[in-house]
């Protein structure tokens, strides 16, 4: 974000003037959820529980959108067949 607006041109009142998707919050992550598709039953619970809508349905499988996944681990915790493991990023 090299060209940031100054106070004269920013919209008033601190309202959000860009979409939140402009902020790739995936880089906040320390642990990364990895899905074992051999175990996954496509029950969609992880999709339901992810607070960041970072689990998406690609038509055939649940996949993690790592641009926005913050690595909270809720999906791994909720998965009934333990198909998701949290692995260190670094």
């Amino acid at each position, binding site marked *: 974000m090299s060209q*940031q607006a100054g*106070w004269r041109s920013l*919209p*008033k009142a*601190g*309202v*959000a003037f860009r979409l939140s998707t402009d902020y790739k919050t995936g880089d906040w992550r320390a642990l990364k959820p990895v899905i074992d598709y051999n175990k996954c039953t496509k029950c969609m619970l992880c999709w339901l529980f992810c607070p960041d809508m970072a689990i998406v349905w690609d038509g055939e499988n649940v996949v993690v959108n790592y641009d926005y996944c913050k690595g909270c681990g809720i999906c791994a915790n909720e998965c009934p067949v333990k198909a998701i493991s949290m692995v260190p990023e670094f």
Partner: protein
Amino acid sequence: MTQAVVKPQAPLEKQVMMTVNGDEAVAYAVKQSLVDVVAAYPITPQTIIVEKFSEFVADGEVKTEFVPVESEHSAMSACVGAAAAGARAFTATSSQGLALMVEILYIASALRLPIVMAVVNRALSAPINIHNDHSDAYLMRDSGWIQLFAENVQEAYDTTIQAFKIAEDERVLLPVAVNLDGFFLSHTLENIYMLPDEVVHEFLGGYRKVSKVRVDYFDEEVPLALNPARPLSFGNLDLYDYYFEHKVQQVEAMKSVPEVVREVNEEWFKLTGRRYGDGILDPFEVEDADVVLVGMGSGVGTVRSVVRRLRKEGLKVGLVKLRMFRPFPFKEVAEVLKNAKVVAVMEKGVSPGSYGPLFLEVNTALYDLKSRPALVNYVYGLGGRDLVPDLVEGMIRGLFKELEKGVFEPKLRYLGVRE
């Protein structure tokens, strides 16, 4: 109050004379101002405003949504929500109630919400006291609100209506606190002139009009308000990349306030025949005055009556009534005080460990003058202590004596306290 020279659009015979107290006057002003939402919690001496207004609601005299909240924190929060949704919102409080609101006061101003609040000035605890001083107003001086002070019941009525116009002006978009002294105004009956409803409606241009904003994700300007069809989000997390810019934007908005307050004061004059100096300050006999007093609120009237009397004796004394405390009119204050030999700032508040908050502002205003008047600070009226005219007279005569000697010590003085 200056009497009309030109014929006002709504001359006195078209206005309605009512004998009301300050709180009732504010309630009537709000009733006439097409306010969408009133959220308030009663506290002495503001109570009559809330009581009277809820009567209007119960009797079906207004369409306003009245929210009887459980605390002042909630009152201001409800006003923030209402104003963010585009409503004209009003609340009123005093003292401890205002203290409880403080967190949300800063949010209201930063979100640029043109809320109007009557602050019926009362001392802060402890010791517990229900009577008047300005410590509650001073408590919110850095919160980003415009602060106006009324001298009498008529001015409380006039200023409340004007406040909506000032707050909602496109150049401003900031909340306004209308201050009136507890009991001295809130519970004092005075006869005042009220405008017919439709004149007030016209003055305000009807219901609140929401301004527009341009954001990246809509291809046209959208209303700066919560709206499911054109969603905006208010009160976002704003870190070191933008917070500073947003704060500067809010601070800079204050710069347009004096101009708008002056315009509204003039417009009011043309409409009603009443104006309050230039809207910002109202000088009395200052041109050739050696001793000039500065003050705000109902006490100014008492001081003026003494100044009037002493002028007849030939004492060169003058008075500056300050109507606007935030934004503080530094230039105007310096200009009006530049020829004084000594300036006495009289105020109903203290800042332990410093001088009174009004004194500090006046001191700053005078700093850039080539030749500065001497400056002293009189704290008076704390906790509702009456401002006795004889005391004011003694104070003025004392200042003339000090002027002969040229020594003004100490700077901070108390008027009417027992040793």
